[in-house]
């Protein structure tokens, strides 16, 4: 498989990950699910909610980081190591 084709496949996969994460966060945010999600917890609800939000941000940030690198690579503006 050519390098360009591989990059396009990775790009599509990363776009799906980003899209699903955003869709999940927006949908649950709009229907109030994010507030009810950890309602069953007796203690530590605040920490779990923060960790859940951080997890979402971690997934989006990582996927977005890879995605942006691949997009810039594909359009010929990829970063080379400084000598």
């Amino acid at each position: 498989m050519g390098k360009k084709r591989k990059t396009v496949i990775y790009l599509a996969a990363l776009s799906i990950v980003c899209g699903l994460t955003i869709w999940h966060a927006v949908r649950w945010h709009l229907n109030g699910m994010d507030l009810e999600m950890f309602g069953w917890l007796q203690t530590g609800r605040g920490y779990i909610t923060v960790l859940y939000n951080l997890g979402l941000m971690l997934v989006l940030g990582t996927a977005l980081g890879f995605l942006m690198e691949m997009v810039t690579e594909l359009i010929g503006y990829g970063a080379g190591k400084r000598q």
Partner: protein
Amino acid sequence: MITFPMLPGVEINLCLLILIGLGAGVLSGFTGVGGAFVITPALIVLGFPASFAVGTSLAWVLGNSLVGTFRHGRLGNVDVKLGLLLLVAAIGGVEVGVRILNRVRAIGLADTAVLSISIFMLLIMGIYTLSESLMRKRKLDEMLARKEKLPLDMRATFLSRRFQGINLPPRLRFAGSRVTMSLWIILAIGFFVGLLSGVIGVGGGIIMVPSLVYLVGLSSFMAVGTSLFQIIFSAAYGSVRHTASGNVIIFAAFIMVLASSIGVLFGASVTRYVRGVSVRIILGISALFFAVGAILKLSSLLLEGAVAGLETGSLAVTFGGLGLTLMMIIALFITALRYQRGQQIPAWAESLVTKAD
């Protein structure tokens, strides 16, 4: 305009949210600061309650620094070993700083004490960074006049040479940044930066980058990348430490991260076209603007709102500073592109830019 279920009755301007994310992203990618010092007041101005603004901006810092670290990593600007060691010490420092802050808060001095320390630190750091980098620029201009080859960045400073010379075992070699230093000195520097971050309540990048340059002896680019790398973890830790009540509007943080991912990529990429002195000049200017904003805020607190407009002035200076530094980064990029294409650029700008390798 968009609304959030967690904030009934509050309408937020989506375009402004995107613009702020984009701007803070560029500054963060270029100078290695987390950017929470701009995002938090910006969110408050947009209508977020303070507790939600802090939590959301910390979540944004996490996503934004992740994207920035990818680009700086590709540029070879991240020293993972050094970043992790600094992080461990910085977290210890943050804990001590937060405890000191709580003690100060208990005697009712928190706001004025914190602002006074912030102003003092930022003024020292901003004035030192700016004067050192302007002197360095003058030297580069002289070298240019003698037609000598300009270095990409300065390496060791007087202080960093002294610190590197301390022979306290174990001494560690950091291959990425080409620095050898005692583990204890690294931990002490990380602890000191963490302590200040804990007391002042900022992410630490604005203190970490100059400390890495002037105390450890890293190049400005390496300091920017390594600072952003350690901010990923310190922002995550700060989120858990400060926002355990769950005050994160992840939807708003996502919108800003999507915008800032373009900004941070641009900012990080511009470092490829400039000399280290340009990064330090912009960092010094940002710190001074931040300090002036804090002075106005402190005056407003001390005068208990007797003088109208001080609070607004503080915000205007913070955002004006962001706007100005953004324009300077864009101007540097355009100048560097012209220089690379062999077009005419002003003589004074030649020592600021370089041809990307």
